[in-house]
């Protein structure tokens, strides 16, 4: 098929618009791929945790186009942001050489000068106090990079001060999985979309945050008349408008609703007695601690506990009509297969872990789990939050592949595996994200390296932490692809980083699917892959602190493929088990879902069920007939139903700050917009941040659409344009967090969940006035 230039442009334009609304256009495949490219290289989208497979078009050493991979789970679909990825590599503000702050200005220096300075600063601080250095990584870094930095710090330096931005988005989901099922990560898969007839979505704005997944959801709803969608969200977004049952509630009261749904399930006998008996235990906290004192309890105790959470009580607490709660509980329990999905609305909370546990409870009570279409499933925000920082063990309390620093055997196993002396790995968890920046502000951490993330914009209560990052007494290194960003502008030393397909590595996304991204083009200017920089830094730092000999065996790598082989070995024998995911297989495959224990194993669609193909059930629990939550060996391979009371937010609205502010994504942008703001189409479509406000609230404070409003919390204030719209419920206002010129995180609350250490971005009290 031959296309004129005009036709091609029209097809491209139509395709972009169609992708934005989840429409499958009857445009010929030739037209989709007709953008001139010398070669197409298999890869993964750079943005959200959905992990869409893509092909990257390269012409004359330059990325010129992106198209969806029709053989991957996304069946060739990508969202508008994914289609428009190429310009992010060629933005005029790409950082192309190292820069050092001298006085108030940055000056170009060589890589040798940068590395020498960095090593000297970190070595000096380390010699005085091993815990005075820290690394803050990212759910966008490659798996090899995150694993490497965890190894360097925990084994090479004996410091657990490594954490990353997944602490800000996924920690509550991770601790929720671990506390209920014994191990992190979902048991289900995107394939469950095709088998579920009841979708329960809570705290998710899927159409904007995960548009390709939303496309599948809508497709299933359109094709199958029996599909029901329940949406619980204080904002009535596109998702809520399309739901069969929309449940609106006062922000922070959803724990009462989830417990009330369990109440209805118990009272109406909708529970699965056989499943509960075979596969669950019950637990409660008897003393809050820290650490909390936990006791096993019984079904009878749970029934007595749940008695108080009547639909009437939940309606009073949440504002959600009791009839909706009862209907949701019945649909959840009585469908053929129920799939729950949630995102930051549950996770970014001071009771995020509890909220996660309560969703899992509903699945365990009803047996809506471990079969096609029936699963709890957390949606991930970043392309490698799961693969690198969670699974790879970068977080301050973790060791690779489900191991914990507080566990004696796990530490010994990893010390042996890494070949470092017994006792090298500290038993005390290091500093989590917010704690790390608090310590940096106080000067307890002297040297901090931030890679592949933008905490100068993304931390909650960011004004406080920006002061610490700008302090002269400490040393801040930032690896970034762009300069200035809201973080690089605060750095002492900036290192230019290769971006996306300028380097090679592995991403692991929401459904345990690991995918290899091959290098397609050379990095911009002198930019280097973070892994190369980490490798050199690690060797030189260990030498500088007197461990040159250890460095030889700890850091023997010449390329990332070698570290991937070590990762496979580190996962072997664990509940993860990547042994069969060889680099060669990954080059050919369109992603593989772990566990993959052997080179001939195809990967595992669903975990914890032998019947549905989990190869590890028989390994860890040989007597299991089918389902085994083998991550929870201490509880007899059973999952935990938790007795969790309802608890509100750290900072509810009050008479001085009568509104609740919540933050989130909008479809045109991603995270701090360092990448999406480089794309003209996206920047034009959504050029600045705004404040959504309900029409009733707007009227009560005399604000009209597009008026400037001043929104203030106890931590800061900001002037934004009002968008008066029937999306947030009365009493709630919403702003996206993308705009670097309108830092909404000046206002958000840095109080965090005691269990997951994840901050409560989603709820803080604010005042709104006409500016």
């Amino acid at each position, binding site marked *: 098929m031959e296309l004129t230039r005009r036709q091609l442009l029209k097809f*491209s334009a139509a395709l972009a618009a*169609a992708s934005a609304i989840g429409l499958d256009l009857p445009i010929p495949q030739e037209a989709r791929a007709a953008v001139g490219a010398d070669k197409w290289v298999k890869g993964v989208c750079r943005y959200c945790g959905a992990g869409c497979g893509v092909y990257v078009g390269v012409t004359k050493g330059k990325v010129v186009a992106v198209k969806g991979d029709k053989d991957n789970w996304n069946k060739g679909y990508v969202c508008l942001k994914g289609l428009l990825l190429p310009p992010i590599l060629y933005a005029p503000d790409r950082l192309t050489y190292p820069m050092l702050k001298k006085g108030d200005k940055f000056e170009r220096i060589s890589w040798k000068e940068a590395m020498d300075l960095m090593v000297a600063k970190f070595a000096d601080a380390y010699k005085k106090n091993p815990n005075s250095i820290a690394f803050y990584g990212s759910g966008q870094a490659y798996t090899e990079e995150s694993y490497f930095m965890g190894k360097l710090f925990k084994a090479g330096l004996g410091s657990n001060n490594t954490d990353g931005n997944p602490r800000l988005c996924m920690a509550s989901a991770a601790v929720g999985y671990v506390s209920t099922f014994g191990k992190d990560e979902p048991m289900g898969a995107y394939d469950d979309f095709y088998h579920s007839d009841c979708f329960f979505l809570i705290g998710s704005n899927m159409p904007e945050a995960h548009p390709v997944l939303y496309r599948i959801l809508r497709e299933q709803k359109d094709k199958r008349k029996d599909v029901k969608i329940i949406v619980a969200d204080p904002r009535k977004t596109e998702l809520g408008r399309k739901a069969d049952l929309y449940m609106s509630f006062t922000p922070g009261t959803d724990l009462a609703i989830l417990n009330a749904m369990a109440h209805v399930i118990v009272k109406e006998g909708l529970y699965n007695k056989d499943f509960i008996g075979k596969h669950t235990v019950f637990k409660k906290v008897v003393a809050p601690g820290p650490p909390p004192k936990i006791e096993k309890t019984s079904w009878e105790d749970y029934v007595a506990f749940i008695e108080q959470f009547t639909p009437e009580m939940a309606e009073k607490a949440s504002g959600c009509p009791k009839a909706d709660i009862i209907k949701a509980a019945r649909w959840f329990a009585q469908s053929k297969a129920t799939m729950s999905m949630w995102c930051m609305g549950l996770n970014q909370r001071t009771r995020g872990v509890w909220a996660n546990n309560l969703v899992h409870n509903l699945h365990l009570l009803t047996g809506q789990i471990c079969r096609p279409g029936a699963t709890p499933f957390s949606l991930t925000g970043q392309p490698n939050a799961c693969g690198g920082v969670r699974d790879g063990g970068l977080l301050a309390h973790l060791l690779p592949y489900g191991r914990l620093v507080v566990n004696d055997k796990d530490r010994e196993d990893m010390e042996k595996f890494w070949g470092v002396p017994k006792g090298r790995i500290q038993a005390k968890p290091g500093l989590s994200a917010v704690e790390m920046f608090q310590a940096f502000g106080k000067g307890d951490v002297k040297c901090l390296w931030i890679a592949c993330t933008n905490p100068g914009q993304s931390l909650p209560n960011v004004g406080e932490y920006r002061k610490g990052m700008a302090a002269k007494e400490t040393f801040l290194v930032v690896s970034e692809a762009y300069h200035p960003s809201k973080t690089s502008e605060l750095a002492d030393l900036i290192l230019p980083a290769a971006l996306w397909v300028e380097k090679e590595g592995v991403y692991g996304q929401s459904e345990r699917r690991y995918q290899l991204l091959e290098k397609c083009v050379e990095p911009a200017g002198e930019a280097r892959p973070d892994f190369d920089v980490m490798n050199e830094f690690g060797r030189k730092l260990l030498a500088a602190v007197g461990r040159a000999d250890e460095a030889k065996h700890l850091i023997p790598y010449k390329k990332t493929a070698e570290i991937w082989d070590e990762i496979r070995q580190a996962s072997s024998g664990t509940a993860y088990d990547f042994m069969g995911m060889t680099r060669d297989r990954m080059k050919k495959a369109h992603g593989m879902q772990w566990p993959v224990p052997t080179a001939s194993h195809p990967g595992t669609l669903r975990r914890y069920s032998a019947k549905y193909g989990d190869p590890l059930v028989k390994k860890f629990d040989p007597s299991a007939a089918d389902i085994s939550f083998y991550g929870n060996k201490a509880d007899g391979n059973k999952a935990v139903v938790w007795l969790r009371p309802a608890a509100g937010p750290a900072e509810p609205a009050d008479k001085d700050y009568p509104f609740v502010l919540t933050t989130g994504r909008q479809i045109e942008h991603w995270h701090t917009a360092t990448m999406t703001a480089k794309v003209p*189409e996206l920047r034009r479509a959504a050029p600045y941040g705004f404040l959504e406000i309900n029409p009733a609230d707007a009227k009560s404070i005399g604000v009209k659409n597009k008026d400037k409003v001043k929104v203030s919390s106890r931590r800061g204030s900001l002037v934004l344009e009002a968008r008066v719209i029937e999306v947030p419920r009365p009493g709630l206002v919403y702003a996206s967090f993308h705009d670097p010129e309108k830092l909404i995180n000046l206002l958000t609350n840095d109080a965090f969940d005691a269990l997951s250490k994840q901050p409560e971005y989603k709820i803080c009290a604010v005042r709104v006035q006409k500016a």
Partner: protein
Amino acid sequence: MNVTSVVVEIQCGMSGAVLHSLALIEKASVYGFKDDKIVVVLESASPDELEKLTAELQAVEYVTGVSPVFSAHE
């Protein structure tokens, strides 16, 4: 020549009427629709013409919004 795609949002259930009206607008091509959203591609010789076309779309009965998505120049 500028090529711009827009998503035209319409009142629920009014796609038939709106599609009929859009077909009468020269330089506007309808590529498909889903629910209450229609994908339209506009061809314009100048920014002024693009603005005029967008206003024309906005004026169609039952249209509630016009959102630009993609723009390219030939």
